[in-house]
């Protein structure tokens, strides 16, 4: 018995566990701060009737799950990752016939009072499968074929998630490209991806013709600078012209087409709102339902961010104190317990408190990267980077969203946002990592 318990705790990275417990505790406290309404505190925590009480119970469930994971042999994860991935995809597909409409999302299956959001859970499976693939013995990641295969592992569930109207969750999957980058995906892919994103943003910000002019000017500059190279490298000129044509094409045709025919108007609107512009749309071309949704989202989106900024901004240096934040206490910020939980810290504990929280998150991320780098097995390393990427994406997008610098895409803040599925998913992600790390002396191939 003693032997076994020593076995469980051996090699566990306690710093990570402590950071985890601290964050969940801060989260429960924040939920408490927003929803406490003068009831008896102890009773409130145990009753399961309040949100903070439920979160506490979810935390308990997570604790049990964590122990189970720590008890599991780490070989189990490598062995079953493909099966889990397959299971995850099946679940994602099953959502389509069996989903329940909750608050406009089509991603939730509900049976006998229990809700399951496969898109959320699938992150774990994708991460495992990706790690498994990256650690295959016969993999040559320099080959385009394997790069494409790895990418498709990520993109498949992302597409299924987009089809369930969960753009935010789908975007999370793209954070796995960071893993691919670490494992050898050429940086140019990411750079090009980033460049395209920049181009899209600039398309929104600048006048079409002006942008075309700027692009042309850059192209001409390149041609001028490398004019002597052309003799040696005849293709270079064509490459420059080709890139220029592609950019202008994206900017003039692809983006407008994508916005008007692929994305929903309210999504476009939200993207526009983030870069600080109003989205002008020909309303006659829209269906009534779309128009209504757009109107609602516009109101809600702008209102959320405005109230969130007021809440955080009014926190000042040291904040108003726990339970004293007027904005977060009285429901001024919608979705406060879930997506906008950061407001509570911002208002209640000010810049100082926010800094400590951000520090905690930063510590956690760096710790995970360090852990990743000390792994002997490629599986564990890839998995660890997957965890870091997912957490990083969630943290940056979520807090950026409450601060008004990122579009409002409803994704939770890891460990803090209210919600059972999210908390369990993040816990499972983290504790599998801790388990793998504990066994880092073993070679897992």
């Amino acid at each position: 018995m003693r032997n076994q318990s020593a076995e469980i705790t051996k090699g566990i990275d306690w710093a990570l566990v402590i950071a985890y417990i601290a964050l969940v505790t801060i989260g429960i406290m924040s939920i408490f701060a927003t929803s406490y309404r003068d009831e008896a505190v102890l009773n409130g925590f145990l009753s399961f009737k309040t949100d903070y009480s439920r979160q506490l119970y979810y935390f308990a469930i997570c604790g049990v799950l964590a122990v189970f994971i720590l008890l599991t042999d780490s070989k189990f994860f490598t062995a079953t990752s493909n099966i889990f991935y397959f299971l995850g995809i099946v679940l994602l597909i099953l959502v389509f016939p069996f989903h329940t409409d909750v608050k406009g999302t089509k991603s939730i299956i509900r049976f006998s009072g229990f809700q399951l959001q496969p898109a959320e859970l699938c992150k774990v499976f994708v991460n495992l499968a990706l790690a498994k693939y990256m650690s295959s013995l016969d993999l040559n990641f320099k080959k385009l074929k394997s790069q494409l295969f790895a990418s498709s592992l990520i993109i498949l569930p992302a597409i299924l998630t987009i089809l369930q109207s969960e753009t935010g969750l789908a975007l999370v999957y793209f954070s796995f490209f960071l893993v691919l980058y670490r494992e050898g995906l050429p940086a140019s892919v990411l750079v090009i991806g980033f460049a395209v994103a920049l181009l899209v943003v600039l398309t929104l910000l600048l006048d079409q013709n002006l942008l075309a002019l700027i692009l042309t000017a850059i192209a001409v500059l390149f041609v001028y600078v490398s004019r002597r190279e052309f003799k040696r490298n005849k293709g270079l000129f064509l490459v420059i012209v080709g890139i220029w044509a592609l950019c202008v094409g994206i900017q003039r045709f692809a983006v407008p087409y994508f916005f008007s025919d692929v994305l929903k108007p309210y999504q476009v609107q939200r993207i526009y709102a983030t870069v600080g512009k109003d989205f002008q749309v020909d309303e006659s071309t829209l269906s009534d339902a779309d128009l209504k949704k757009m109107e609602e989202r516009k109101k809600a989106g702008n209102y959320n961010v405005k109230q969130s900024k007021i809440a955080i901004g009014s926190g000042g240096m040291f904040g108003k104190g726990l339970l004293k934040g007027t904005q977060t206490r009285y429901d001024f910020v919608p979705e406060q317990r879930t997506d906008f939980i950061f407001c509570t810290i911002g208002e209640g504990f000010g810049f100082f408190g926010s800094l400590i929280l951000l520090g905690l998150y930063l510590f956690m991320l760096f710790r995970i990267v360090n852990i990743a780098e000390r792994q002997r097995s490629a599986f564990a390393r890839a998995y660890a980077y997957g965890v870091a990427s997912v957490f990083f994406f969630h943290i940056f997008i979520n807090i950026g969203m409450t601060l008004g610098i990122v579009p409002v895409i409803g994704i939770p803040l890891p460990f803090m946002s209210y919600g059972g599925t999210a908390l369990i998913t993040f816990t499972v992600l983290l504790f599998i990592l801790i388990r793998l790390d504990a066994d880092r002396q073993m070679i897992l191939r």
Partner: protein
Amino acid sequence: MSVFNQSRQNVIRVLILVAFIILIIRLLFLQLSSSTYDLLALDNAVSKTIVYPDRGIIFDRKGRSILENTLTYDLMVLPNAVKNLDTAGLCRILNIHPKKFHDRLIGSIIKNGKFRPSVFESAIDTETFVQLQENIFRFEPGFYLQERPARSYPYKAAAHVLGYVGEVDSNILKRTNFYYQMGDYMGLSGLERYYESILMGKRGIRYQVKDNKNRIVGPYEKGVYDSVAVAGRNLNTYLDVELQVLAERLLKNKLGAIVAIEPKTGGILAMASGPTYDPNLLTGSFRKANFSYMLRDTARPLFNRAIKGQYAPGSTIKPMGALIALDEGVITPSFGYGCGGAYRGCNRPIACEHKNPAHAANLRLALANSCNSYFSHIYRMAVDNRQDRNTRLGYTRWKGYMNSFGMGVRLGLDLPSEDKGLITDTSFYNRLYNNSWNSCTNVFLGIGQGEMQATPLQMANLMCIIANKGYYYTPHFVKSIENEDDSDTLLNKFKIRHEVTKIPDTIYNIVQLGMQDVVDRGTAMGARIEGISIAGKTGTAENYGIINGRREKLKNHSWFVCFAPRENPTIAIAVIVENAGFGATWATPMASLMMEKYLKDTLSDTRWKEVERIEGTEIILPIVKMKRNRLDSLRKEKIKVQVKRATAVVDLPNNESDSKHTQQITALHIEAILKDEESIC
């Protein structure tokens, strides 16, 4: 293979770090750079409610409250709680049309939102209140009654003195540097205005936290920023409310004023202006309608004639002429003047009522007989003084006396907007007569005519000077302020004794005796009261009005001034009745009744009959009545036409319920028209 990509871990670390730095910079910007968000948050979540204190109560000299607080009720509506309402029932009680009901409900939602209560109907009248209170359970919780303090005048008297409160307007807001806030009530006239700072008390402010739907959830920061409302302080006045009521009864159906002052203190015992009005008309929901109606009445009931009515004093000024001459030393009490029925010292003779040569043989006789010649003469003697023989200097000195008596200047009593009457200075005559004038030019001043006007208050004050033998206190109403301390400076100026002559008491006695003769055997015999020696003086003021574009002489104003008892005066009175003819006819008996009521504390039955007689007599110039009637009929006609037009538009079939409907519409339209009129005013 992974070995080759070792360096990439640092790229990832840098990426994470940069992202966090971006977040921190943004946080810095939001939280530390400006206080905008602080204010926005406060505005979002904290509501400031003003707690109105009770206004102070005003008591009369015997401790009876003459202006106090009462509760009126507002019908409040909480729009989001209005469910399954018996709309028809509520409309019936409130006597409004369902359409209007709907409009008001929408209006209150627009104004205050669905989740906060709004006033649905303010200051509900008693009858409606009783009906509502019985039935309110049927309309709850969407509708409920809320009490609101209002002013009430239990004696329905002293409207001009007490004044009224009203909502502040933007002018007042600016003038008071935004001390008041929109929706505040403040004293707009009378004592309510003058003692506003005492009566208003201190507003309390309650900070409450509200939620995202504007609902109040509780006190902000446990109420540490709240301030408690402090009730206004009470005022004790010199007013005798019974005397005041009597004065108002006597002035019924007349234009005029009565002022009674306690000479020893300057305390005003009664101040009435006719016609007056029930001050309760200017509280509650019909304030504006009543106000505009009275504002346009040609008899001007809102006009306080006691301090704003300016009349030639006529013979009532003669005792003062005597005082000036005595103080200047130009005459002694034994000085006599041989009057043969007219004063012939100047180009034009001035007629005198008496012809027997001895009627002005000395000062006392001259006063008793009100000899025009005598007082014209001593006026000229005073002005053409022995020292410099310079009329201008002499006149300036004479004017100085008059001013020190309170004539031609504002006495400064504790009511706003007092008028100062008229005593001209030399430049007026210089201009008018091109610098060539002498004491003959304005000799009429000696008998209270010409370029001289006085308010009834000033005349009563003159009586105080004679009663006190040479001094007066500025007339005022308020005796003391509740919990008065050194910071209350409002009453200080009423404690200053104004010495105005250096004449010895013995000579004053002669002036007083002359005035007593007026009552005992002269023109004012109607003022006599058994067992009380009264000193008085009648007066008849000529006056002119413009009728149909022509200046015409109107019937004389009737003056009487007096004080009693002569030996130890406790009351001084001035009475004027406009266009009532000779002073003795109306003013004298009125003053007599006032004195008797005050000095004996009661009136006998026969005297009450006299009161009723005077009360029932109407003395109003036909021209005033004519104009007033025309205005009334115009108003009625206008309403009739409007109602006709309204009912013509609403084409209704003939059955009972619809005729009710028509009535309602008629009522609505009359209401609308009244509103129109308000806006015109």
